[in-house]
């Protein structure tokens, strides 16, 4: 069938049904606090790496939870693991372990 009418621009929407939740599931299994984020942004505000680059830990977390994992490897590589985000997080998220497990999940999927 030929394309006709107004179809939604691909990539514009979060395609929840077809997204990849493998990283999200892996991280949540090993660090349940991963999904407690309320998006206050303190982590990004204090983030050492976010001062020099467009790294945004809040967004990385959220995107993985939505299954939007494209380019996540390059993003998470910017983290220095200094732990400031963990100190400011009002929800008590174990942010450093979230980062570790995201990296673990990525390397696992590469190994497969």
């Amino acid at each position, binding site marked *: 069938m030929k394309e006709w009418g107004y179809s939604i621009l691909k990539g514009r929407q979060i395609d929840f049904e077809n997204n990849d939740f493998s990283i999200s599931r892996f991280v949540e299994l090993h660090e349940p606090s991963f999904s407690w984020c*309320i998006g*206050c942004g*303190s982590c*990004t*505000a204090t983030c050492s790496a976010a001062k020099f680059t467009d790294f945004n830990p*809040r*967004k990385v977390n959220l995107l993985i939870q939505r299954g939007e994992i494209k380019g996540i490897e390059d993003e998470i590589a910017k983290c220095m693991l200094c732990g400031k985000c963990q100190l400011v997080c*009002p929800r008590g998220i174990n942010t450093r372990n979230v980062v570790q497990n995201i990296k673990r999940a990525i390397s696992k999927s590469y190994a497969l």
Partner: protein
Amino acid sequence: MSENKQHIIIIGGGPAGLEAASKLGSAGYRVTLFEKEEQTGGKLRTWYKLYPGFRLAEEVQDFLANEIKINVPEIFSNAEVVNIIPDNKYHTVVLADGRSFIADAVLIATGFELFKGEKKEEYGYRIYDNVITSADLEKKLRLGQPLTTANGQTPARIGLIHCVGSRDKKVGNVYCSRLCCITGVKQAIEIKHHLPKAEVFNFYMDMRMFGQNFEELYIEAQQKWGITFIRGRVSEVAENIDGSLQLKAEDTLSGRPIKMNFDLVVLLVGMVPADRTEAIGKSANLGFTSGSFLASADAQIKPNETNTPGIFVTGTCKEPLSVGETLSDARSAAVRIISWLREKREIN
């Protein structure tokens, strides 16, 4: 005073304690109220105007004082209660000076304290001169002091930080203090009342505008006063060489970190239980909420009862409440105490 009159002791002479005392007094009970300070009135005495209608806190204070004058003859000031010894028939209330009193029912209305801003050192309270708390701002407004920076300049840009000491696991307070949001809106407008040219920014996580006319005031703040609300929790405040302050947050709606300079920063400090509440509660075997407030026996149907019969709670010692909510809660407590005392008398 006749001997067969049932006796109620109220601990705390803030709005909750005063309102319950006058209602119980007018119902004919013998009421004794202990206030740890020189004067009754509690934190209401430290506030200037009340949201959402900007009425003077003083007016409510006068209302309470008048009521109490008529209905409650026995008020002990400078009387700090240290513990309660619960018993089947009578409860004993012990004061710091060693005196003790017995009562058929005890109503705890010890109220709240404000979260100590310096506990969040990254916000620089008591380190940087131009970081103040919402209580400091109220004091300035009440005393009619000009809103200036520490060195007497008129601030051109003022920032208000929400959720200081509330919804923060790192300081042990996971609960929401509920009223800082509306206080932030109210104070932002009050700042504009005094300094129409100043830019005012509120940094928030969520705006919780649950009360009557709260949302309307939020809209007024944006539409009439041009106040800006930035969704992002401030991570730290730093001082510039000229004494102005730099705030760091993430502007989460644009998804980028933001740094801004301010001449004055107001911390909207949350509510925590008053210092003595924990000791009194423990002595009477009461339960506590996650935030160490006194727990009601049942949130829906027994809001003023506790798990110890004859010991009741009201006001902000059990949860963060506005002045209006506090007075309603005190009346609810009074009604429940009256019915409970009747049941007790009938059994005996």
